[in-house]
């Protein structure tokens, strides 16, 4: 095990340095190679001209003696590698970081392990995913010139806003030991109702928003009621609601979208001085509220308790039913807020909006270190999880990766995050 780790470390470092060296070599010779390329194109052009003249039966233009261009095999290799030099750089740096991380963990263990049991605290976990986010950003900054520009980062922020808001709600649900699959449908239905209220019923924007939030929280309350009072498994209850709400969204307009909403409403996602100010403020407010409730209120503490051990929570006098209803209502309200953001940004409401959104939200929460078994997790973790998902989606777009592979990558990351959770749990159990 230990020698294995050492080998991996050495391989990482050697490969990393090799890749960086290769990149440096390619870079250093790029001028030279460019010259050769230039000459080659020039010659091709002349030869094409001559060929054309011959075909047309014209008098061949005298192109003079064609210079013989020498292309060494090294140059040939550099020319093929040139297209990949960015990936060499990224991969090389990642490998070196991985190697150093292994070395650091090894050093830490040998120096500080005084026979004490390892303490697996959630803060370690957050540090890990934060590191992952930073490395991810570093990679993208190298791979794409556009990534680190202000306009792109603002774009990322606006792109994650929907997932951001519902992942906050989802964090409550998953910490309580449940799951909410109905968030995407909830957003679609609420968005359509917002649009109908504003366009068809000519309600004022604030009134429509208020009613929209009432509707979305009502959907959450129904979920919570089914789960708390009828003891339905959360997966089943919200799966049913997912289909019902989506069906309702199709039904209310007969499947037709609604376009062109009041400007007071679309202004919510508008930009002030090129910054999506309101959207950012709303996100910040939702996050702050979620963080506060989880940390500073009884119901927040109880959310952890029922997720960790329902029996004990009940014996400690906690009203399980009301806590369960609460978390699903929170999730519902978050859907309402997300519906406002999405509908105002698209300036339209479609029954297909936010399809599959629940997967992104769950992924963000799980990547953020919240256990699918409940009882463990944090808002900060979810925040980082959201950013990781958002940055990956943005990066793949910038690199021109198609939708198909993007979905595959996302799925892979979710699976890896859960594997890490499982391994961490196993380590915690075996150290006991």
């Amino acid at each position, binding site marked *: 095990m230990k020698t294995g780790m050492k080998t991996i470390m050495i391989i990482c470092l050697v490969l990393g340095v090799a890749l960086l060296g290769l990149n440096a070599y390619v870079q250093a010779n790029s001028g030279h190679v460019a010259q050769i390329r230039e000459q080659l194109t020039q010659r091709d052009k002349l030869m094409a001209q001559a060929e054309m003249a011959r075909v047309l039966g014209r008098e061949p233009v005298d192109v003079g003696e064609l210079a013989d261009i020498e292309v060494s095999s090294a140059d040939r290799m550099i020319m093929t590698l040139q297209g990949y030099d960015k990936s060499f750089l990224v991969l090389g740096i990642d490998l070196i970081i991985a190697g150093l991380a292994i070395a650091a963990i090894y050093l830490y263990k040998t120096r500080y392990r005084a026979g004490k*049991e390892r*303490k*697996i*605290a959630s803060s370690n976990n957050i540090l890990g995913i934060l590191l992952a986010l930073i490395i991810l950003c570093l990679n993208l900054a190298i791979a794409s010139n556009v990534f680190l520009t202000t306009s792109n980062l603002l774009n990322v922020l606006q792109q994650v806003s929907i997932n951001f808001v519902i992942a906050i709600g989802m964090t409550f649900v998953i910490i309580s030991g449940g799951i909410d699959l109905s968030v995407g449908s909830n957003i679609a239905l609420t968005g359509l109702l917002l649009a109908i209220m504003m366009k068809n019923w000519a309600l004022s924007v604030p009134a429509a928003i208020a009613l929209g939030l009432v509707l979305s929280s009502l959907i959450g309350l129904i979920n919570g009621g089914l789960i708390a009072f009828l003891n339905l498994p959360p997966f089943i209850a919200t799966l049913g609601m997912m289909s019902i709400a989506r069906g309702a969204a199709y039904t209310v307009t007969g499947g037709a979208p609604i376009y062109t909403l009041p400007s007071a409403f679309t202004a919510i996602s508008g930009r002030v001085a090129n910054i999506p100010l309101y959207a950012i403020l709303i996100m910040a407010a939702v996050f702050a509220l979620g963080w506060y409730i989880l*940390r*500073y*209120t*009884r119901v927040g*503490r*109880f959310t*952890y*308790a029922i*997720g*960790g*051990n329902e*029996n*004990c*929570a*009940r*014996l*400690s*006098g*906690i*009203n399980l039913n009301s806590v369960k209803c609460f978390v699903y209502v929170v999730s519902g309200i978050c859907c309402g807020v997300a519906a406002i953001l999405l509908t105002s940004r698209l300036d339209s409401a479609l029954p297909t909006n936010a399809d599959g959104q629940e997967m992104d939200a769950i992924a963000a929460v799980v990547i953020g270190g919240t*256990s699918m078994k*409940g*009882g*463990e997790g944090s808002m900060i973790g979810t925040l980082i999880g959201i950013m990781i998902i958002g940055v990956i989606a943005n990066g793949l777009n910038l690199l021109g990766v198609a939708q198909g592979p993007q979905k595959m990558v996302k799925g892979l990351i979710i699976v890896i995050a859960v594997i890490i959770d499982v391994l961490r749990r196993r380590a*915690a159990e075996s*150290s*006991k």
Partner: protein
Amino acid sequence: MSGFLRMQNITKRFPGVLALDNVSLSVRKGEVHALLGENGAGKSTLMKILSGAYHKDEGEIFIDGQTVDIRSSSDAQALGISIIYQELNLIEQLTVAENIFMGSPIMRNPAMVNWRAMMKKAQELLDELGISISARSLIRNLGVAHKQMVEVAKALSIQSRILIMDEPTAPLTSREIDTLFSTIRMLRERGVAIVYISHRLEEVKEICDRATIMRDGRNVAVVDVADTSIDEIIRYMVGRKLEEKFPKIYIPLGEELFRVESLSAGKLVRDVSFSVQAGEILGIAGLVGAGRTETARAIFGMDRLISGSIYVAGQPVVINRPLDAIRAGIGFVTEDRKEEGLVLTMNVGSNITLATLKEFMRLGKLNLAQERDTIRAYISKLNIKTPSHLQISRNLSGGNQQKVVLAKWLLSHSRVFIFDEPTRGIDVGAKIEVYNIINELISSGAAVIMISSELPEIIGMSDRVAVMHQGRITGILNNDQSLTQEEILQYATGGARQTA
């Protein structure tokens, strides 16, 4: 030593506990051998080692003269060892035959079960045992006795040479017991070595040949059942004197704080009545399955009451859920720390304040600083060994976890405390600390109900002892100097039937 099965000098340690200390057991072919001892004497641990659930730390096991190494239940099965637990291991939705051949169904080819052969073989087994049930009937349609017979048949189907029966008669009526016994006698004829664990000593007299008696993880005696009286066996089981020291204090009793009248709930709480005064510890003794925990659960609103009334400080209270009990001033330290006492994923501090979080609210916000101060005060008061109040409870030792649970209830301003097995699975030092906490409670005028399976603990700490048997209180005994474990055991095994 002769003996088909020999376990020699088996030692097993659990963290902080020496569960088995040089225990030996020898069972002959065609013998029904009783394994006797109080709860916690180490019988189950010994049998779990034999069946591969635990692995021994020291000692040797011989079967038919050969040393064997049992590391898993499949090892045990391959050696012909079968165990029939108190809780039956059958799948209700399947047929008798499917259950009998659960592990190794008879196959027509690698992909297809040979149903006809399996049914036929199962029926033969049942007929051999003289059991009049069809191999095709579903388990859920059978009575308890027949289910047990199916377990026996299952054990025989794998050619068991050694059969362990753990309290097999507990759920049976006397007619069903007769059927079981005739089956056991038949197995004895066939030369199967049977280990029979039971608390019912009359049955042991009836069916067993020899008995190994254990106490506190050690061998006490091996006796021929025919030549030994039940009284003698009980004396071996409980030993002569209390070996542990209990810091019992006597304080003047105050007003009656708690009373239940004619409490009935479920199958195991029948017409239970008792009362506890301020400053008093009422011990509740009884064997496993006597309804002690069920009584506590009913009082605390965890199980629905069928009838009966509960009074706290003379006032009738209605308890439908734990919250009602807590509001009435009752605290309940449950038997199962991990399942019911603690939220293992939460930190120590959050567990301590879980039941009293309301008191730390200021204007809708938790006052974390005040909460932390209280938590720290209790951590030092109860001497909870934890690096920080933010340590995850899962990482604490059993004794410290138990103290966290105690801290939670001490914070709750309850006046009536129910302790269910408060010292189970914790080391001696922590036990004394738990007793001292209980003493502190009664000194401050609380009433304590202490359920325990350890008779020395009951006698060492209680002012009075209520003994339960099959859901009823068979006696409430004053714990003066003359109360003996024998006396309690007699009530616990169904009244004073076996008086000396």
